[in-house]
């Protein structure tokens, strides 16, 4: 009897400690985000320097957002990013789908060598070639244009076909063969039969390629020097890293901008989350 109650209390204590541990870790993980949101809504002090967590004259409000959309080029950057991400997303998705389909479902002499070549190419660090890309774009007199960004983001999309190909591999070959017997042409099989079956991975590809221009600032930094053509990421980066001083007036405004970008990314993700999870696990089955 005593033994049972002892075991029960021990279990209770262990559960209690599990909750304490989880809660502590959870708070640690959420705290920076809370801090970001708090700073974004914090109007005082008017300079961005955060000296105290809760100043005596604390005021909250949308002042930073107002500043962001009126005093900075943020609306412009937002528009640029939308243009670049939507266009490059379309091209990237097309490239990845087409390459994965060709490597997964078609058989031709150079299939293996080409796949190996892409594997090797993918092992070079991406921005090793950045400087050369810059000069190639310059030779085409394309630098300082959104078109250059679109080309850079989607030009080498063919390299990242792995996950998508894994998904295509899971679709039985017989699907296409049956259609061929009925007299369908290759493009028809690709467009009408295989693509509708791969909706999850298409959503996954669209999502990841749509998001990446929102997060990159290195390529933009090299290619674009005109402030009007910045994307949000470079704009925000420059906003607080432009001067050598560790803090400048823009910190609270930066937090507001970060919240806007975060909000956009979260809403895009949650609206497509169901497909996203399906897409990833579906492709991972093959490994």
């Amino acid at each position, binding site marked *: 009897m005593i033994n049972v109650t002892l075991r029960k209390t021990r279990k209770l204590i262990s559960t209690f400690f599990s909750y304490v541990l*989880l809660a502590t870790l959870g708070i640690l993980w959420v705290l920076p985000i809370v801090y970001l949101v708090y700073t974004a809504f914090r109007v005082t002090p008017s300079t961005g320097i955060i000296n105290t967590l809760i100043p005596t004259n604390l005021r909250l409000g949308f002042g930073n957002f107002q500043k962001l959309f009126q005093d900075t080029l943020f609306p412009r950057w937002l528009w640029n990013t939308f243009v670049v991400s939507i266009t490059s997303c379309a091209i990237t998705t097309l490239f990845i789908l087409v390459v994965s389909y060709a490597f997964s479902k078609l058989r031709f002499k150079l299939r293996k060598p080409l796949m190996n070549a892409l594997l090797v190419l993918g092992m070079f660090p991406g921005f090793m070639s950045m400087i050369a890309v810059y000069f190639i774009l310059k030779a085409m007199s394309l630098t300082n244009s959104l078109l250059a960004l679109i080309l850079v983001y989607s030009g080498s999309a063919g390299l990242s076909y792995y996950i998508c190909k894994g998904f295509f591999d899971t679709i039985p070959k017989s699907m296409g063969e049956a259609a061929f017997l009925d007299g369908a042409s290759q493009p028809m099989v690709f467009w009408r039969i295989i693509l509708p079956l791969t909706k999850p991975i298409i959503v996954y590809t669209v999502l990841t390629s749509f998001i990446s221009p929102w997060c990159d600032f290195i390529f933009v930094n090299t290619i674009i020097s005109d402030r009007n053509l910045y994307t949000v990421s470079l704009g925000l980066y420059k906003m607080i890293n432009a001067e050598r001083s560790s803090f400048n007036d823009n910190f609270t405004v930066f937090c507001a901008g970060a919240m806007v970008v975060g909000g956009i990314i979260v809403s895009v993700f949650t609206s497509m989350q169901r497909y996203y999870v399906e897409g990833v696990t579906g492709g991972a089955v093959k490994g």
Partner: protein
Amino acid sequence: MEENKVEKPINETTFKKVRKAFTRGSLPTKLSFIFMGYGQIARGQIVKGLLYVMAQTAFILFLIFFGGKYILQLFSGNLGTRVSGEIWNEQLQIFEKVQGDNSFLILLYGVVSLLLVLFFLLVWVSNVVGNYENDVALARGEHVRSIKDDIEILLNKKFHVLLLSLPFIGLLVFTVMPLVFMVLLAFTNYDYAHMPPGKLFGWVGFRNFITLFAGTGASSGFALVFLRVLIWTFVWAFFATFTNYLLGVLIALLIQKKEIKWKSFWRTLFVLAIAIPQFVTLLLMQKILDGDGILNKLLGTNILWLADQRYLSLIPRLMIILVNIWIGVPYTILMSSGILMNIPTDFYEAAKIDGASAARIFTNITLPYMLHITTPYLITQFVGNINNFNVIWLLTGGGPVDNVNYGGASKAQSTDLLVTWLYRLTTDQNPQFNIASVIGIVIFVISAVISLFTYNRSSAVKGEDTFQ
């Protein structure tokens, strides 16, 4: 039998076709070796023929007016000879500006032109092969292919060509060409002392490799620096990968415990961190950890969390790994929760009957099981961390600088990874593109070796269906 005969010429290798076209081809075919498209036009494939004629004309014009010059200079042994500057003109009694050679453009356009030559060679081969196939068709009493036939072939038998051509052109322009160019830079002396257009640079063979791997001396003591950066890169990659992994799995296990309620709430709490773009969280962390940042204010301390130079910059190094845990653990939680749920429960039941403690169950069952399944994931993470530019660059920028340990010319700083060092060398006010290229090649070799290991390993894993 009949079908076999028709298929036969298709199965020959391209090289064999070209050779046969040369030895046994008809007159139009042989003429097409020099005048591209002649054979096609002579046999009624007017459009195709004209396209080849245009391609040849364009290529010759390109060679004469642009490419030829650069290719010649590329192979002349040095990248340009005339330095631009001002030369005294005796007759006019003035200094005249002279446009010299630009080594950079010679190398860049030389590479572009060479690739175009290769591309033209492919077009030429397709021209010859097309003629040879016409020969074969005519000998059999068949018609030569019309445009309609060609399109039909492109849509069916050669559908892959149609699909792959555009993505591969993109790859060629935005990956292959720049890479060839950068790899070639590793064999030149292109640095701040040889900056075009004012100055020339040229080939130096393996000198940069020697500078990086074995160089000693006041200004070029890169070997020690390289070793330090390399060691830190691996130390960082190891800790970044395994701290994320272990903590992620442990937290996922904790959430998975039977007694814990609101599982999805806890999971979302952690996964929330993924929602914010990485560069934002990193910049935010940089500000929080700044000397004037909120952390110091809260703790009442005055520590330069990301810039303290003491103890070989131990504090910044630790902080980077900690921040990386904050960023990376949510991903591991996401990845591992699914796998953990799939661990067969009889393993656990058997262990419990044997009276194993929770810690032993973790080290003897859970961890080996996870490791077995996620080895490829771990290795790709490891390679990813070797190249983890963002975390280092946005937090410390590679710093703090401690010139005591790092040669000034090397520009390497204490928390630099190979990638951030490469980036600094190319974007610095005194850039050293040559050394940066060598570092890029080193990174490539490291990634390639580890990745190849993964691929062999994962195929081995595929063979093992059961976990023991």
